[in-house]
């Protein structure tokens, strides 16, 4: 149990309206073989800690119900939460926005010592690409090798999309998730629409 001061950062419907960084654009774009969509208002938590510390790993498992991915570039997910390996001591946790505070509190409850949990929900938004030609769109957009023999299901990397940084994830065979910075969301969206 830590004494970190945290509060629920989720916008409350009747007081403040939460707005996607892409609110001024259409929330989906369909062309032949590709569907580009935004998944707005998810919860994002940055987790840092020592992956060699058994208590740390156990605490994360208890709080989220998922093992901590310690292999580079792996993505572990349940129905509600996903944990992405970002670096040997950093992970990105993505969950539904409404449950973000719950998971953040649970992590602070379970972890102790030298660790950090930061709610960065305001800083990111998620785009998804699906369809037969989704791969072609990615080939045009990132320098990373996204060919299925190199980028299998359950892999997640931090790389570049056009000239912006992106967390590129492949949660299942037919879908790609792109987590982009909110300030780059407009640029990434327009780039992807152009490529589609």
């Amino acid at each position, binding site marked *: 149990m830590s004494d970190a001061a945290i509060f629920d950062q989720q916008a409350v419907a009747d007081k403040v309206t939460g707005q996607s960084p892409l609110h001024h654009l259409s929330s989906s774009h369909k062309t032949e073989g590709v569907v580009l969509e935004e998944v707005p208002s998810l919860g994002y938590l940055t987790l840092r800690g020592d992956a060699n510390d058994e208590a740390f790993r156990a605490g994360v498992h208890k709080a989220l119900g998922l093992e901590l991915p310690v292999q*580079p*570039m792996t993505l572990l997910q349940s129905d509600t939460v996903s944990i992405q390996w*970002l*670096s*040997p001591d*950093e992970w990105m946790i993505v969950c539904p926005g409404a449950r973000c505070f719950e998971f953040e509190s649970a992590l602070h409850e379970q972890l102790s010592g030298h660790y950090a949990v930061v709610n960065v929900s305001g800083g990111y938004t998620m785009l998804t690409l699906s369809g037969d030609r989704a791969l072609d769109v990615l080939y045009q957009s990132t*320098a*990373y090798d996204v060919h299925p023999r190199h980028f299998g299901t359950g892999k997640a*990397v*931090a*790389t*570049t999309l056009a000239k912006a*940084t992106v967390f590129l994830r492949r949660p299942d065979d037919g879908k790609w998730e792109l987590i982009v910075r909110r300030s780059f969301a407009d640029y990434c969206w327009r780039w992807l629409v152009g490529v589609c």
Partner: protein
Amino acid sequence: MFLIYCPYCGEEREESEFHAKGQAHLARPADPDNSSDEEWGHYLFFRENPRGIHHELWVHAAGCRKFFNVTRHTVSYEILETYPIGEQPRVTANQMEKPA
């Protein structure tokens, strides 16, 4: 494509994900309060500029955001090895002078 091996990600990544951060293995004076201006000045401002093997600090800026070391040949630009922070290079200038 110019690929660099990131020792933390464990695979070859595109060069545009990385930034060079200057000379590696700079030892901070152990006792800064009592170090001379000359010693401190050398630590802050004086850098090697060799023709040949150079050990450099790089960062995987768009990837895992970790710093690591690169041994690079300044004439051919060839990257001879990359290794994590805290480790010593396996390829050094002394080694290279010896005939193979």
